[in-house]
């Protein structure tokens, strides 16, 4: 086409037609320069106290030892504030408070317990923007995710379980569901507030009281949730939050006053917890690591599948236990899928988590960045192709990793076997459906899986043979409080969410 003729009022600067087609190369797409988005920083201001204590028996208190730790903003590497470093003494105080509160809480009419949960949910919604900003500051995840996923889902878990509080008899007809008692709950740093909600909401709905131990790099939103509990008048001791590192976690696991442990985190720590609880009579649920397969057949809607693959691995910087980190592509479409992935990767925006247009934020900690870097080095030394998003310059400070995918990966390569917990996708191939299933199941884990095909019959045939707790069909990373989540094999046991999730917090005997 010709450009505008003379006499026209000048339009915006024309984009130079430098495409490869004119220059004789192969067609390509550029996403570099035209019409850049101006910075769109989230402007909500969040107050953070210089030092924050544990929340025990309805009040914020210092550690008995007086010890403190820093929590950092991973996007800058700078400290946000200090928080109490809990030990066995603090855990003991918290468990005692929970123990005192438990009969009172369980003795409330069930409908009254439900009302408290509704109040927590509503207050979370009212303070949603503040919680989202705080989550992004402490964790490094983009504000569009904390704002659109983490916080709304966390509130949804409280709403959902509020409804169950007075209907537990219907969940288990014929039984007489009773609370278990005091629950010790240890949560990871990837979805700090959401994991707190997954743990607390069902436990409270079933009449239990809780001691929650947030991860050492992300304690702030759980403490803000404790503030909300106080604000809405939740009885003292029903929810207690003890912050700190593995020392506090271990003390909670070993405390004799705890009736149940729920842990979400690494498989390595999960195994240690399981062995230390052996013979103690405490109940246990574990939600551990994963190396989930995402299987794309040649008859899938490819552009849709690419979206699912991208959502599956780059969501939350890949810090997702159910991340679709092994992509199995049918041989016949491998090259097309790789090309489409490359194009899609080019439009991902990596950078300031508090910019509303950021798609991929900061890696949560220096330690995690080291882990990811180690795996990428292994991939390179194994001779794999490492394809990185060629996006904007990364910030100088803080912890950053460009989203990438690896081609030439074989099932025996370390990067295709071990959980990386970062924005790194291994691309593998298969020829027949049987081979897809065999390769997908060839892992010690079994948390989630994805299947992409437009053939309905094939969907159900494949889904039934995948050893995974969650199987997504033509979608990925979809969560709902009504849907149970949990793993097979080394991904743990027990389910969270839905009617199945209540089971872990009830005594049916």
């Amino acid at each position, binding site marked *: *086409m*010709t*450009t*505008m*003729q*003379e*006499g*026209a*009022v*000048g*339009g*915006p600067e*024309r*984009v130079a*037609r430098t*495409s490869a*087609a004119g220059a004789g190369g*192969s*067609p*390509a*797409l*550029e*996403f*570099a*320069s*035209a*019409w*850049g*988005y*101006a*910075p*769109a920083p989230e402007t909500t201001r969040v107050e953070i106290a210089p030092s924050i204590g544990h929340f025990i028996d309805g009040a914020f208190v210092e550690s008995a030892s007086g010890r403190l730790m820093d929590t950092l903003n991973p996007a800058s590497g700078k400290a946000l504030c200090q928080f109490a470093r809990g030990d066995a003494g603090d855990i003991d105080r918290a468990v005692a408070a929970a123990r005192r509160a438990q009969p009172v809480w369980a003795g409330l009419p069930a409908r009254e317990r439900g009302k408290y949960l509704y109040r927590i949910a509503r207050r979370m919604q009212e303070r949603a923007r503040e919680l989202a900003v705080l989550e992004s500051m402490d964790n490094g995840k983009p504000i*569009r995710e904390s704002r*659109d996923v983490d916080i709304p889902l966390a509130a949804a878990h409280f709403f959902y379980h509020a409804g169950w509080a007075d209907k537990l008899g219907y969940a288990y007809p014929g039984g007489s569901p009773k609370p278990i008692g005091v629950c010790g709950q240890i949560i990871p740093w990837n979805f700090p507030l959401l994991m707190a909600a997954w743990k607390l909401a069902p436990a409270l709905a079933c009449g239990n009281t809780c001691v929650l131990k947030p991860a050492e790099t992300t304690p702030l939103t759980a403490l803000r949730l404790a503030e909300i509990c106080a604000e809405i008048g939740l009885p003292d001791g029903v929810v207690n939050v003890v912050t700190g590192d593995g020392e506090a976690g271990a003390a909670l696991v070993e405390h004799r006053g705890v009736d149940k442990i729920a842990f979400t985190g690494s498989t390595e720590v999960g195994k240690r917890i399981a062995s230390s609880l052996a013979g103690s009579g405490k109940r246990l649920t574990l939600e551990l690591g994963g190396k989930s397969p995402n299987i794309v057949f040649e008859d899938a*809607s490819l*552009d*849709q*599948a690419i*979206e*699912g693959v991208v959502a599956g691995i780059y969501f939350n910087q890949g810090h997702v236990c159910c991340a679709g980190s092994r992509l199995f592509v049918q041989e016949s479409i491998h090259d097309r899928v790789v*090309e489409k992935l490359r*194009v899609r990767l*080019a*439009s991902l925006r990596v950078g300031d988590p508090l910019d*509303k*247009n950021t798609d991929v934020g900061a890696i949560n900690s220096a330690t995690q960045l080291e882990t990811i870097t180690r795996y990428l080095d292994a991939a390179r030394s194994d001779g794999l192709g490492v394809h990185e998003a060629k996006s904007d310059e990364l910030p100088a400070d803080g912890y950053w990793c460009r989203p990438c995918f690896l081609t030439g990966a074989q099932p025996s390569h370390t990067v295709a076997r071990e959980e990386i917990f970062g924005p790194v996708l291994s691309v593998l191939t298969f020829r027949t459906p049987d081979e897809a299933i065999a390769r997908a199941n060839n892992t010690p884990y079994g948390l989630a899986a994805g299947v992409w095909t437009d053939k309905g019959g094939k969907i159900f045939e494949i889904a039934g043979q995948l050893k995974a707790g969650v199987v997504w069909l*033509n*979608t990925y990373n979809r969560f709902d409080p009504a849907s149970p989540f949990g793993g097979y094999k080394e991904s743990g046991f027990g389910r969270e969410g839905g009617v199945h999730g209540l089971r872990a917090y009830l005594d049916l005997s």
Partner: protein
Amino acid sequence: MADARAASFATRSIKTTAKRAGLRLAMSMMDLTTLEGKDSPEKVRSLCAKAIRPMPDDEALLGERVPSVAAVCVYPAMVPVARERLDGTGVRVASVATGFPSGQYPIDVRLRDTERAIADGADEIDMVIHRGAFLAGRYDEVAEEIREVAQVCDEGAREVHLKVILETGELVTYDNVRRASDLAIESIRPGDFIKTSTGKVSPAATMGVTLVMLEAIRDAWLGAGKRIGMKPAGGIRSAKQSLHYLVMVKETLGDEWLTPELFRFGASSLGDDVLRQLVKLETGRYPAMHDFGQA
């Protein structure tokens, strides 16, 4: 996933300088349209004046000129009127043809319709496909008709560009939209367009449908090196919507499609809202609609 992906573009936050650049770009990509039975020559002349100079007091209010729109889009009977006003201005004359809006006419009549519009001065032809044939599965027939119209566009003395209207509101499913897009792209020349809607059927353009069509264009470019343009039309009334579409184009097809040569908006009232937002950006106040000349 297509709907989820389409919705995600609307969550981009376009502020300050990006907003100004985006709004100016949207204005320059507009096919200012009037397609009514009661269209008068005078209305078309008003539209042409607006197309050439959307806001005569732009320099006083904004400190710079607002770009002209890309084209004025009218029925064939109004082409001579538009031609007379737009000659030499750089704003192109687009005419719907081929039995718009239904396409339910014999092919010879539809081709004649096209020839006449071109003879009267149309630079661009917005044709409709024969949805009856498409929905009945007679894809070859649809493709052949598009090729014949493209042939007519090729034979004129001037360069005439073709836009193929799929009328996605009647195709209903994304599978149909994708199939019709592939078929149209196959049948037209590089630089021609595919277009969502006539504006006479609801729903007209949607983000989801446009994304599916952009993906077809992307595959044709990366696969066959054929560069095709895109025109969503109907129902895009607010400046904010137009920015959502531009975000989608930028993130699906990249830099090169951010030009009126490869992307257009078919709209009748979008222009005024773009002007309102430009004034608001500059002065902090919204002007009233009566501050802009009617078209």
